């Protein structure tokens, strides 16, 4: 069964620091990849997505992610975080494995706290 691993449970940064959140998945075939953000008390919102093409994907609010197929990774980055980026971040993967194309699996999330 496919799985998604987010290695950092809680990351604490100061404003203007750079961010990289790790995401690895366990499937060797074709995948669609997503990062979502959940601000406190809200539902999940899409940050960025990868379907095909350029493995460096740019999303909203200055976030980007790089798909490295050989490492089964889709890490999220931002060069300079702001206090308003405090939220929980989720990586999600949809793997194409025959009858379960609809099955979209999330990682356990990484909480980001940005100190002003």
């Amino acid at each position, binding site marked *: 069964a496919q799985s998604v691993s*987010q290695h950092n*449970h809680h990351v604490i940064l100061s404003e203007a620091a750079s961010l990289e959140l790790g995401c690895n998945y366990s499937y060797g075939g074709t995948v*669609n990849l*997503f990062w*979502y953000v959940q601000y406190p008390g*809200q*539902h*999940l*919102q*899409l940050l960025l*997505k990868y*379907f095909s093409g350029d493995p460096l994907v740019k999303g909203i609010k200055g976030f980007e992610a790089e798909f490295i197929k050989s490492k089964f990774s889709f890490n999220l980055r931002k060069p300079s975080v702001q206090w308003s980026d405090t939220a929980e971040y*989720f990586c*999600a993967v*949809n793997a*194409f494995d025959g009858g*379960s*194309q*609809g*099955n*979209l*699996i*999330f*990682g*356990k*999330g990484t909480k980001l706290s940005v100190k002003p």
Partner: protein
Amino acid sequence: NAGVTQTPKFRVLKTGQSMTLLCAQDMNHEYMYWYRQDPGMGLRLIHYSVGEGTTAKGEVPDGYNVSRLKKQNFLLGLESAAPSQTSVYFCASSYLRHGSPGELFFGEGSRLTVL
């Protein structure tokens, strides 16, 4: 344009009671999902549907049933609620893209407490 709407938003049940959560989407999406979110566990897929009249099990289907009689609605039922089902439930929908789902559009969540 409402997007994905979940009802009710809050509910308190006693152990053994039954209830149904309703999800409605107005985007003509093929795919619909029910997830539960628990602290430290992320989002876990309960059931999903790839089209009207179809359903499939996710990671944690036990204790839940679903139905998709109409394309725009996806119902999640708890036949006999247990305290372990205390959680926040999110419905989501997605369009069909080359035989697989695109990105998910989420509802605002339903907080269920089972005493």
